[in-house]
């Protein structure tokens, strides 16, 4: 069964490239570009994994984790993408319940490995 991923990234070029690579690896990828769209998407859909940039319009990655964990009360796995030198945010993300993180500039093969690993660890 194909896994459905939600990619929340405001940089359209990067999201397009990552979507292409993830789709090529067999995942179904839905892309949203801001926090509002994330909320709207999560009301109607339940992805297997969320990949989110930590800096997004309307809702940051940290707020997204908080929303998923506390408002939706979901244990949905979340991978955070953050810029280099943003360690404090990464630590906050882990404290809030992020499952993994990836730093920019992103290496698409590394992302694939992390996605696979996080999905593998998710309890069925």
């Amino acid at each position: 069964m194909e896994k459905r991923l939600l990619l929340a990234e405001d940089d359209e070029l990067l999201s397009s490239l990552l979507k292409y690579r993830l789709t090529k690896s067999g995942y179904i990828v839905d892309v949203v570009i801001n926090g509002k769209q994330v909320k709207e998407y999560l009301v109607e859909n339940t992805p297997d994994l969320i990949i989110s940039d930590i800096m997004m319009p309307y809702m940051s990655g940290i707020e997204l984790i908080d929303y998923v964990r506390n408002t939706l009360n979901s244990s949905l796995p979340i991978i955070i993408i953050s810029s280099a030198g943003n360690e404090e945010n990464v630590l906050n993300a882990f404290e809030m319940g992020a499952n993994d993180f990836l730093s920019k500039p992103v290496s698409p093969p590394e992302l694939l490995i992390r996605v696979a690993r996080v999905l593998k660890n998710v309890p069925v």
Partner: protein
Amino acid sequence: MIILNHIFTSIAPKIGVNFLWVLAIVFAIVALLYIGITFYAKSNITLGVKRNKIKKRELGPIVSEFLFFDEKTASLEDKNNYVCLKIKIRQMLKNKRNRKILAEVLVELSQDLSGETLKSLHKLYKDLGLDNDALEKLKSWRWHTISQGIVELTQMKVTDSYNKITKFVNGSRGVIRKQSVIAIVSLKDEGINYFLDTTQHKISEWQQLKLLEILQNKKNYNPPSFKNWLFSKNVDTVLFALRLVKHYDQSDANSSIVQLIRHKNSQIRQVAIQCVSEFNVVEARESLKKIFNTSTNDTKLLIIEALESLGFAEDVQFLNTIENRKEVFAVKNKALVAINSLLPENHLEIEGLEDISAVLIQKEDKKPLNPLEVTVTPRTEIEKDLTSAIDQLTDDTDNVPIVNDIAETDLLTFTIDDTIDVVTEVAPIDDDKHLEFIKFLETKKETPKEAPNTVYFNVSESSSTSKKEPENLINNSKEALPDSVFKSLYDGCDTEAKLILLDEIGALGDEKELQFVLSLLNAPEIEISKKAASVKIIIENRLSVIAEQDALEENATSKLINKNPNLQEELNARYTNTTKTITPIKPTLVKELKPLELCFLEEEEEKTEEDVFGFFDINFILSEEFYKDNCN
């Protein structure tokens, strides 16, 4: 009024109404044209941005397709698609605008990607010939176009452009110059060498930091020996080279750095001093001392800091001269810190300390120290007995002549070593008087005039005193009390300290302190007299409790004497012989008086009764272990 009207009408030009209408229409048309052109330009730009965005969305997947195409794993369908995309993109690239957008897409993506994907992106950029466009930009007369070209070529790692960019390194336009330096250092490892060799302009702090960051991010970078640029004609090059030497720990440049300590530029001096300190160049100490006077205060601080880390004891003299010279506070203070670091505890500041020793000396100048004035604070029963024995011998201190004047017949003999032992064991070590006493005993030990191993204690000027009963002796000692130890301290204090001292007297004081406190009741300061009154009450209360305890003990002793008449005889015999060494009382008697601690000690060590109960004998040494076990 009429005249003014006439003047104005004669000066004012005669303009026709039609002309004014024409003028108004022309201005209106110009205004409309301006507004129209502005709106057109704005909408054009917005449209252009929208088109670019659409084009980028269109190009994004194509770029992804190119980047992630793997000929080995691709199916036939994928290969066909790839060929079709190639044709499509070649068609697109014929349009200059599309080429520009594609270059922008690739440059943007290069900032967000890493690893193999980034390398593929660089390769794609070159394969599509977009680097030629960037190189063309370098030929532009516009500075921002040239700058864009340099940034693009640097971002996409077009190393072939290195030589073309180097010609901007010493260009007249600052922005292009800085951009080109970053580009050549990023593109090739030897870029930093070329820059340091050729640059004639100032290298700003920001630029230095940026270049250092680029060098740090280079993988497998083998830095050149930066000492080669330490004597460049460009002062900024020297400074930057020094910083690079320091950053890469190139200690082979030590001799050059030592020379740079004498550089006229204070910034270079400072970095050189930091290097010398970091590389532990001990031979630089003399140079550091020589340049000290001609340096700024900041440099002086660094010099002292360097001497602190590199220096030896012989450098303290130089630091002392700084401390005594007319320098700013920070420099002098730093010198003091360095001195204390090189020779710890050697240089002690005494200006801020109160000289209490002077007070004591003054006191003792008036009245020479009499070793018999030593007061012993009893800690155990044994000590108490021992102390009372000594007190009996020294009861009337006012009448005690100086030791040298004592008649041979009035002496009671003790061995000096034993006496020292008794005093050191019984007395608090930090008591000045006791230390003086011990010193005195030591001198007696060394003086050939005195009988060896003999110290003379004056029992009394009259033999009658020596024949007194023990109780009387004790009473006499109470009548003539020496000054309180607090008195000398009290004399050197201010009112606040005196009040604190009175509190302490209240907590610790005995008869001596009571006398001292009584003398303070009429002190001129009301606070002190009030405090003295309250302290007096506290001491009196405590003394009355002690007196009650003593009375109880005396009753018990008299009962024992009644039981054993030998005791009284023993004591009488002991005090009637003035030259006799104090002898132990009979064990049979003392056995009943011995302290509980001693009983335990006896049990432990299984000593004979003679050994254990000879505590009235002064010729013994109390071991340290005894005090450790019993007196803590």
